[in-house]
Structure formats: structure tokens, C-alpha cells
């Protein structure tokens, strides 16, 4: 028996290594909402029956329309894999909800259904019917458990105060009101400026709605603080100020010139690739009045500064804050990046990777994703979708570094991109990658570099991937070619 011991140890070690590497996977394909919530979706569709609230037939009809639209909004989001139910991130967020519910049983008699949205936007929302949705973006953005708890408590408060349901009722009532009908008809009575008049009718409603919404937001803030206090979770008003910067991730600067991130992989780099060579208007100093922003009167949320000022004296003094575990942050960030990649939003995806590198993150998964981005871009170029894959935006909306990165992806010559793909294929990080990631490498190589660019070949390669990696999260990407 003795001579076999090392062999058994080695065998066990291989098995455990396999187990470890499987655990390292962010999530499985079956965690995507159209798999995971399949049954809930069906039962939810049946359970969400519009209550009969109005004697007026047309108001009840309109209310039902709005109600049903909300149901289909949720079910189609489930079908579209907008949500994910992984183990770690979900349980962490759900744990906060459990804590809040436990301490506030009178206000929240039943624990709400939590959905984790894969969106990168630092946001959360309440859908009514005891459902709240938390975006991966807010999980990645929040630094402490208390910050995330505030966001969740705020959304729970909306549900407690029936804000989503009341908003639907108000809408149904307004759309079927005599006043609305009168206003609309007056548009046709006028010979001139009909569009302006119609816009005014709709804006009047939006303005009044937004004003109410602002009150609702303030109410939700106040109640959220109560929920937190009862749960012994410290509140810090500073978070409202930090939320102000949540949308400016792409206006951040990188720590080193873009060139350095690429030469670190032994990829040749020319500075002129990042300098816009176009003669077009994008390079000119235009300064048209910005009309894209939301008018202050139409904003649904009070300014973060206003929220801060209103609540700062409620900040828990001398509180100790609990950092969100690094593993949760890391996972949320990776899931975001993968989701962006699946949607072929390559520039924001790559920029986030470079920001991770700036933080000193040496996780080789990000190297793997850089390979995917480079091959993905080359593949998009081959398919004549490079422009959309880059997602070209104006220089005014991003930092100089982001714009240079975007320009690089736009202008790097095709031949160099091919060279990048080939060089990265031979990079050292691959030896530490899991089998599914190595299979992705093969799939991407076929898509981008195989001389046979036929759909048949792409489908074959994708099927080959999915057959060996049925549960892999990367199947979501491969399935685009098998369908």
C-alpha cells in the first residue's frame, strides 16, 4: 500500500486543484436569470394580478395596461439575462437585506425578492410588489457595507411607502383625466406650434411627477436612515457626496501613459495610434450649448449635495465601518467586465481593466480579458463592426486617457491588431488559466484569426466550446454563434 501513497496524494491533489479552480469561476451559465428564475418568472406572471381599484372603466383599463407593462418589463429582463444569481455577491447583498428586514419587521413583514442586475451603472431600484433590484455597478462602487446598506434601505423604503405602486396609479389617473384629454385636444385646435404645445403638455406632467418623485426620494432617504438605525448599521451622509462621482468613472485618469499597459505585454506601440488623425468635426473646438442634460426641474432625484445637507446631522458619530470584502468587490467588478465584454462594449471594458491594473491588481484573469478584448476587436473589424464595438464617444464626455484609449482601438492598424492577438496567445498567463478560459482562447482564435471566416466554422468552434464547457459562464458568449 505504501508505494501507492504518493500517487493517491497526487491524485487527491489534482482533484482538489480542480475543485479550487472550479470554485474560482465567477458563476455558472445556469446562474443567469433566464435559467435561474425560470420557475419564478412563470409564477410571478401568474401572481401579479392587477387589482381592481377604479370604478371608472377607462382608468382601470389604463391602470391594468401600466401594471402589465411592469410585469412584462421584469419578465423580459429575466429572459434577457439582465439578472444574475451567483453565490457570493448575491448572498452578500441578500445578507444585508436579511439584516434590515429582521430589525424592521413591522415595516417589512415579508422579505423582498432581491434581483442582482448586471448593469455597470451605480444604481438600484424598487419595482414594487416587494421586489428590489441592485446593480452590480453599485456593489462595485460601494466601499463599505454601510454604504451599500444605505442604498438598499433607500429602495426598501420606496416599497414600504408604496412609491412604485402609487406612481402607477397616478399615471393611470392622469392619462385618463379630463384635463389631460382637454390639453391634448387643445394641441389639435391650434394651427401653429403644435409640437411645442404637445411637449408642454407632457412636460407639465413630467415636471409635476418629478417634483413628487423628489419628495419621494427625500422621504425614502429619511426612512432609510430609520431602517439603518434600527438595524444598528451606521449612517454616513458623506456617501451622498460620493454618489455624485459614480457616473464619472470614464472621466478618471490612468496612472501611466497608455503605451505602458501594452508594452508590458511586449506589444509594439506607436504613440500616433492614440492621436486622432481625423479631419472631422470631432477634432474641432466646438462649444454648442449642452442640451443633452436633464433640466433641473425634470430631475427625479434631489442633488446629492442637497441630500447630504439634509441628512448630514444624522450621521452616526464615531462609527466604525466595515469594508466590503475584497472577494465580493473583485467578483462584482469581474462580472461587470465580463458582461460589458459579452455586450461588445470594448473601450469601457478595457478602461476598467486598466484601472484595476492601476490599483496594483495582478490577477491574471484581467490579462485573459485583455486578450479577449484584442481578439474581440479584431473579430469585430473582420465583421465590419469595429466602430460599434469600440463605442466611439465624444472627447468631452471622457477623460483624456479614455479618449486616447478609444482612439487607439479605432486607429490601430489591422495588421498590428492581428499581431497583438498572436503575441498575446503566447503570453505566460495562460498557464494559470482554467480549462474553460483556455477553451475561450481557442474559440476567440478561430473567430478572429482563422482564415475560414464562414458562419459554419464559427458555429463549429462555438459548439466545440459549449460541448466541453456546458456550465461555463463563457458559454453565454459562445452561444451567440451556436444559435
Amino acid at each position, binding site marked *: 500500500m505504501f508505494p501507492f501513497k504518493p500517487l493517491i496524494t497526487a491524485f487527491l491533489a489534482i482533484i482538489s486543484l480542480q475543485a479550487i479552480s472550479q470554485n474560482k469561476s465567477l458563476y455558472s451559465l445556469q446562474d443567469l436569470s433566464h435559467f435561474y428564475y425560470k420557475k419564478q418568472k412563470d409564477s410571478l406572471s401568474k401572481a401579479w394580478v392587477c387589482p381592481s381599484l377604479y370604478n371608472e372603466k377607462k382608468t382601470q383599463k*389604463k391602470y391594468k*395596461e*401600466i401594471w402589465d*407593462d*411592469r410585469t412584462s*418589463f421584469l419578465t423580459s429582463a429575466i429572459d434577457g439575462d439582465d439578472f444574475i444569481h451567483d453565490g457570493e455577491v448575491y448572498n452578500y447583498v441578500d445578507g444585508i437585506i436579511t439584516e434590515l428586514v429582521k430589525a424592521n419587521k413591522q415595516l417589512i413583514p415579508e422579505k423582498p425578492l432581491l434581483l442582482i*442586475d448586471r448593469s455597470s*451603472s451605480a*444604481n438600484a*431600484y*424598487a*419595482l414594487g410588489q416587494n421586489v428590489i*433590484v441592485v*446593480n452590480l455597478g453599485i456593489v462595485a462602487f460601494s466601499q463599505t457595507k454601510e454604504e451599500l446598506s444605505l442604498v438598499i434601505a433607500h*429602495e426598501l423604503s420606496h416599497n414600504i411607502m408604496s412609491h*412604485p405602486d402609487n*406612481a402607477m396609479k397616478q*399615471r393611470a389617473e392622469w*392619462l*385618463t383625466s379630463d384635463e389631460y*384629454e382637454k390639453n*391634448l*385636444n387643445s*394641441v*389639435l385646435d391650434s*394651427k*401653429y*406650434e*403644435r*409640437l*411645442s404645445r*404637445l411637449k408642454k403638455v*407632457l412636460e407639465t406632467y413630467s415636471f409635476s411627477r418629478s417634483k413628487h*418623485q423628489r419628495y419621494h426620494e427625500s422621504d425614502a432617504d429619511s426612512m432609510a436612515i430609520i431602517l439603518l438605525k434600527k438595524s444598528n448599521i451606521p449612517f454616513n451622509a458623506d456617501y451622498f457626496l460620493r454618489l455624485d462621482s459614480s457616473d464619472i468613472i470614464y472621466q478618471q485618469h490612468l496612472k501611466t501613459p497608455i503605451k505602458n499597459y501594452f508594452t508590458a505585454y511586449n506589444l509594439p506601440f506607436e504613440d500616433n495610434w492614440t492621436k486622432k*488623425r*481625423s*479631419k*472631422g*468635426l*470631432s477634432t*474641432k*473646438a*466646438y*462649444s*454648442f*450649448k449642452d*442640451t443633452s442634460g436633464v433640466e433641473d426641474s425634470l430631475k*427625479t*432625484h434631489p442633488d446629492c449635495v442637497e441630500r447630504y445637507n439634509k441628512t448630514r446631522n444624522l450621521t452616526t458619530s464615531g462609527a466604525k465601518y466595515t469594508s466590503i470584502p475584497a472577494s465580493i468587490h473583485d467578483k462584482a467588478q469581474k462580472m461587470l467586465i465580463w458582461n460589458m465584454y459579452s455586450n461588445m462594449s470594448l473601450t469601457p471594458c478595457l478602461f476598467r481593466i486598466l484601472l484595476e491594473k492601476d490599483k496594483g491588481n495582478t490577477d491574471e484573469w484581467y490579462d485573459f480579458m485583455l486578450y479577449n478584448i484584442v481578439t474581440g476587436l479584431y473579430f469585430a*473589424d473582420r465583421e*465590419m*463592426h*469595429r*466602430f*460599434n464595438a469600440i463605442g*466611439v*464617444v*465624444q472627447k468631452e464626455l471622457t477623460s483624456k486617457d479614455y479618449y486616447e484609449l478609444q482612439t487607439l482601438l*479605432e486607429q490601430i492598424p*489591422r495588421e498590428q491588431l492581428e499581431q497583438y492577438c498572436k503575441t498575446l496567445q503566447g503570453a505566460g498567463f495562460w498557464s494559470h488559466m482554467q480549462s474553460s478560459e483556455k477553451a475561450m482562447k481557442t474559440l476567440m482564435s478561430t473567430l478572429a484569426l482563422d482564415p475560414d471566416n464562414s458562419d459554419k466554422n464559427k458555429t463549429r468552434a462555438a459548439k466545440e466550446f459549449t460541448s466541453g464547457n456546458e456550465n461555463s459562464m463563457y458559454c453565454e458568449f459562445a452561444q451567440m454563434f451556436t444559435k
Partner: protein
Amino acid sequence: MKKALSAILLLLTVCVAHAQKKVFQEVGEDIQSQVKAIYQDNSLVGYVVFTQLEKASADSFNYKITIMDENLNDIGVVKFKENKLFLYGVSFEQDVLCLAYFKSNFYYYEFPTKKEYKAAQDNEKSSIMTQFLSLDGKIIKSNDISVKVTPSPYSGKIASKTFVGSGSLKQTVFLHNVQGKGFALLYGDESTNRVVAYNTAGTQLFEKIVEGESNFSLQNLLTNGQYIYVLLKNHKNDANYEVLGYHAADPSYTFKYLFKDKKGNFLTLHTFANDPSTGNVFASGFIVDPEKSGSDDPNDFAKGSMAGIYTINFNGPKKSDVSEVYSYWNDGSQSLFNKRGRNLESNTYTKYRGAFKDFQGNTYFYGTSYIKRAKIGSIISTVLTIPLLVPPIYISAFGYSKVKIHPTILVKQTPKGALSVENTVDGDHGGFYSSKLTGWTFDTRSYYYATDPEKKNTHLIVNDKKNIFIYSLNGKKVIRTIPHKDGGTLTYVFPAKEGHIMVSEYNKKAKSTTVSIESL
């Protein structure tokens, strides 16, 4: 929170649209849009979407101009009120956008009664309006030049309960930037044709009457530095073109060139463009053989109706600067072609559809080649049925020759006039067609070219029946083949910023169109 808001707003819009469909439909009827590319020195630098929003008064409308950069990103909006406008062109120079419109208080209006129609006709005022916009959204200046328009025979006729002022300018309107100076405008109405130059502040530099030979039409407007070139086509003879020259800073300068070779042959014109290397204007086309020119069909063409091809280079301000390059094949001087223009290597004929210049001064003529064969069956049938009288007449009606499409041919003409086949671009294949019945319709290809000054390369885009072929002159090969139909997606390509094409994909299932600016 924002997502929920967007969803709710979307719901609101949908609900409202259902509830008050009539209101939205009627308001929507007044909204009309035109999309135009913005050009500077023949390069596409952006786009404008010009939208008529609503009727603002009895004779004016509210308009919105959305300005987009070359990547289709919105960069600004300008709103204004005016009479009825039709946008002809947009040009850019020194951070100023110039837009040229046809403006009227009568044409394109709808009147509810004949009386109102008549009253408006009596007060009719139409003009060419040039509008100058700065990049901070200010309208720097607007100019109006009065024009005379004759109502069309359909004007005033009832069109769905209304009387419409119908009519249009006699000639089209051209607008081009003048490097370092401003803009040149070319237009023609019932009484006159004029070329007008403006600086970037919108101040008129000069206005000149375009004096062509006789009964001419305005064909094109180009500039090279501060020189302005106007191309006219004289309708007295089908192949008589002329170029008139002006100078933005020197109103006294004039230049006139009539297209005719030294033998007195007329010239057809297929390209009037700028040399990408020097900016000089050049023109290219066929030399017509007057003795053999008959009807314009593949049969006559194969009989040698064209004597050769030419390039005329307008290398400077004087007539002596013009260099004419004529390459005749009807005199037997070309080893590549027989006297009828048949390519001796491929045994094909090519009706060149256009030409472009490379960065070394050579001209490349491109067009679809075709072969011509006798319809042996028809000839035999005719011979056999001669005694029956009627059948041979019937057979002869379909002709005795047939044509078949062959690859696109690119013929290089050196500055000295030597011709050589640069390359062939294999396209979609087709069968034989009766040349008598189909004329040139068997040639389903359309062409345009895109110059990339940075890489000093030119791409020829061949839009064929089933595929789009992109040929690289430097690469000497087709670098991309894009099928028009791939599954449920229909693909088309359009010109875009330098070195790029705009790819438009229509998804039949989703009924949606996506556009993308792709590198060549």
C-alpha cells in the same frame, strides 16, 4: 433608480401614444427631416440632420439643425424659424458651417383653399438662402438671393384636400468650401446662372453670371485653393462640356475651357474631381468617335463608338497650364486594345464609369467589362424560317447578339497617355442577355471610390448585385467582400470620413437599422 425611470417614461410614451394616437399622428405629419453630409475639401467631416418641427405661423416653420461629428455623435443643436426651406448642401471652412437652402413663401406650402393659394402665389418670394453657423451654435449671418421659379404644371392642383405650391429651381444648387477663404455657391434659376463667393463671416466677395456656350446645365462645382471651377454641360451637343474658372480673391480673373480634342472629337465626361496629391482639378471620360457614334447600347459600343479615353488636368490658373492626355485606340496605337476598344487580352469591352487619380498622377479608369457573342441559335432559326416570312421577323426583333457581364476592369493611364490593365476585380457573375433588349441594364454594378491621403491609397467600392467588393489600389486586391444579404440582414455601404466607409445593416426580423463607420 434611473433605469426604472426610463422604463416608466417609456411606458408613459407608449400609453400616451395609444391613447391619443390622432394627436401624435397629426403633430408628427408636420415633422420632416433631411440628412446631409458636411464636406470640407471633398472630405466628409460630419453630418447634419435638418428637421422641420412644426408650423410656427402662416408662412413660417420652426426648424432644428442637429450637428453630428464624423463618428455620428451629436455635438450640437441650432434652432430657428424661417419660411419653407429645402436644404441643398453643407460645407465647412475655418470653424464655420455654411448651409445652402432653397427658401420660399409659396413653394412646397399647402393651402386649404384656392383663394389662399392664389393670394400666396401673387406674393411669392423665393430665394437661395445661405446660413453661416459658428461652432458655438450662433447663426453668424444669413443671406438671401432672390430667384425666379416657374410653377410646375401640377402646381395648385388638389392634393388630399389641399392646394400645393409646386415647382422647383431650374438648376440644382452646389456649395463648396474655398480653402482659407470661405465658400462658393453655384445656382441657376429661370433667368440666370450665378456663382457667388462668401467669406466665413457670410459677407459676399463677388457674384458672377455664369456664361456658358448655350442652353447649358450646371453640372458641378469644385475648388482648388482659392480657384473656383464650374462644370457645365452644353445641351446643344450631347458631349460638349466646358469648365469656367473664378478666383475668390480676384473678381477680375476668368478662365474658360471647352472640352474637345485636337481632332475636334467630342468628349464624354464621367469624372470631375480633385487630384488627391496636388488638389488640381481633373476631368476624365471617353473620346467620342464621330464616325461610329450611334445609339448608346452595348452593340454600338463594341463597334467602336468611342475612340479612346482622356484625362484633362487643370494644373494652374492659365489655359497653358492645362495638360490634356488623350489615349486613342481607334488609330491602332494601343497594343492592349484593338481599334474598336476591345481588350485583346480578355476579349472584353469596358464602358468606363469613372476614374480616379493615385498619388503619383496616374489616372485609373474603372468600369464593368463584358463579352459580346452572336446568338447562333437565332441566326440558324432565322435562316431556316426565311420561307415563312413572319418567324424570322419575330426572331430578329430580339437581336442576334448577346452580352454577358465580366469582371470590373481597372485601366491605368500614365501622365503620358500609356494604357495598361492595372487589375481586374472579379464581381458577381451573371448570364447572357440580349443586347438589343436590355441595353446596359445587364450591368448592375455601381461604383464609388474613397481616397485615404494618410496612407496614400485609394479604394474602389464595387456595389454588385449580391456583394460589395472593396478593392485596394495599393494592396492590388479585394480586401473585403461584404454580402448584401446575410441571413436576415441587408447590408449597404456609403461614403464616410477619410479612409472609412459607412456600413448600414438592416435587420429584417428586428426591423431596425444599425450604422457603423468602418475602416477600409
